[in-house]
């Protein structure tokens, strides 16, 4: 691959944010080079490409770096116009998708992290808050799946599907590592069936980090978490 149109993704195997970008690149059929970063020993290139946050993912296209996973997703959508669309064509539908993407990012992600990191009474409180937010999300998603059953033919997954994969992709590893059950099929049947259907899509399966490796990482982080 020459320098022109070269795409490089700087990532880390366990990062849900990196995973979002990988799924998008694969859906669009964009060839790319993947560079694994050791987050305890970040490369000079990463620090140069993302001086503000010093984080992965960073997408470098034609030598120009882009950071922030959702910004990268919008860039991919706008740059590679051939192939499947990740966002809806209609502006109002796009606004709805962006609204819920923001909800997932700001409400659900933080709640899951709080629930995972806490114990005792704080944990009970965090779980309760998470479940309440999941209920709000469940209700909101009925708008997108009026027939109630998400299914994905031809891998036609989009923005919200990608973000959801990154949110719930590790729940089996979370469950095994610290008994954290964040998705209850009885309380949130739509979200549960959506995640289950997504997990069968090949590009989602391909990008899922190895289960045992993930369990080990979660356990390691929990043992070594600063108190």
């Amino acid at each position, binding site marked *: 691959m020459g320098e022109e149109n070269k795409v490089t993704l700087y990532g880390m195997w366990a990062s849900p944010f990196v995973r979002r970008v990988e799924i998008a690149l694969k859906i669009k059929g964009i060839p790319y080079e993947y560079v694994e970063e050791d987050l305890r020993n970040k490369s000079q290139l990463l620090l140069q490409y993302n*001086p*503000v946050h010093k984080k992965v993912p960073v997408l470098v*296209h034609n030598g*120009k770096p*882009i*950071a*922030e996973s*959702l*910004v*990268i997703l*919008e*860039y991919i959508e*706008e*740059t590679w116009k051939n192939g499947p669309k990740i966002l809806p064509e209609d*502006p*109002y539908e*796009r*606004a*709805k998708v*962006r*609204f819920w993407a*923001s*909800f997932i990012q700001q409400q659900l992600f933080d709640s899951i992290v709080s629930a995972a990191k806490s114990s005792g009474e704080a944990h009970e409180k965090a779980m309760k808050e998470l479940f309440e937010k999941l209920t*709000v999300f469940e209700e*909101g998603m009925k708008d997108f799946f009026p027939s109630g059953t998400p299914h994905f033919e031809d891998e036609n997954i989009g923005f919200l599907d990608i973000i959801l994969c990154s949110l719930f992709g590790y729940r089996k590893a979370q469950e095994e590592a610290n008994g954290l059950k964040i998705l209850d099929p009885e309380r949130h049947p739509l979200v549960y069936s959506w995640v289950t259907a997504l997990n069968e899509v090949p590009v989602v399966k391909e990008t899922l980090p190895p289960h045992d490796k993930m369990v080990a990482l979660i356990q390691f982080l929990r043992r070594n978490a600063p108190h």
Partner: protein
Amino acid sequence: MEDVKLLGAWPSSFSYRVIWALKLKGVKYEYVEENLFNKSDLLLRYNPIYKKIPVLVHGGKPIAESIVILEYVEEIWPQNPLLPKDPYERAVARFWTKFEEHTSPTFFSFFQTVGEEQKRAVKEAKELLRIIEEQGLGEKKFFGGEEIGLADIAFGWIAGWLRTMEEAVGVMLMEDDRFPRLQAWIENFKAVPMIKENLPDHNEMLAYFKQRREMFIALATS
């Protein structure tokens, strides 16, 4: 042509973001002032998830979250664009717009806390302002280049609200000559005619902020 309604609140910089975008694009709209201490049924119906302003209602269809609204406004009314055409430049603008979102907790903390917690917020806030000035703005006149764009609107609160916040709290974040380029940006931003005509009254804002600050101090020290 479908009607446009904006539910907003006069002290809110988030509300003004949408006003600026609509005015810059010459979009006619009906403005509905919300009392945030007594929210209308309309607001609760249009934004049941967060119950917050701003909400844009276009042809009866509501959109919440200011940046989501701005992206929508940009797509429906492309005149006087807030985003450049080039996808990379757009990504840069969106990156800084997202960065602004990340800074909210620090500035809220600066306004709402006291003592050690506030000292930490002050230090963090100054670091953020430094990054915004050096890496976001750089040598440019505006975040958007020669004209204001999405990121300028997202950082608009620094131009119209920060000084008043500092006065109400009694702590300076942007001391005199420490942030010359950001200071120049503030002057340039406020000089844009559509912005100049649409900024809250300083005295009213100060009185409001002082009242809110007193409330937060009471909460923090109770």
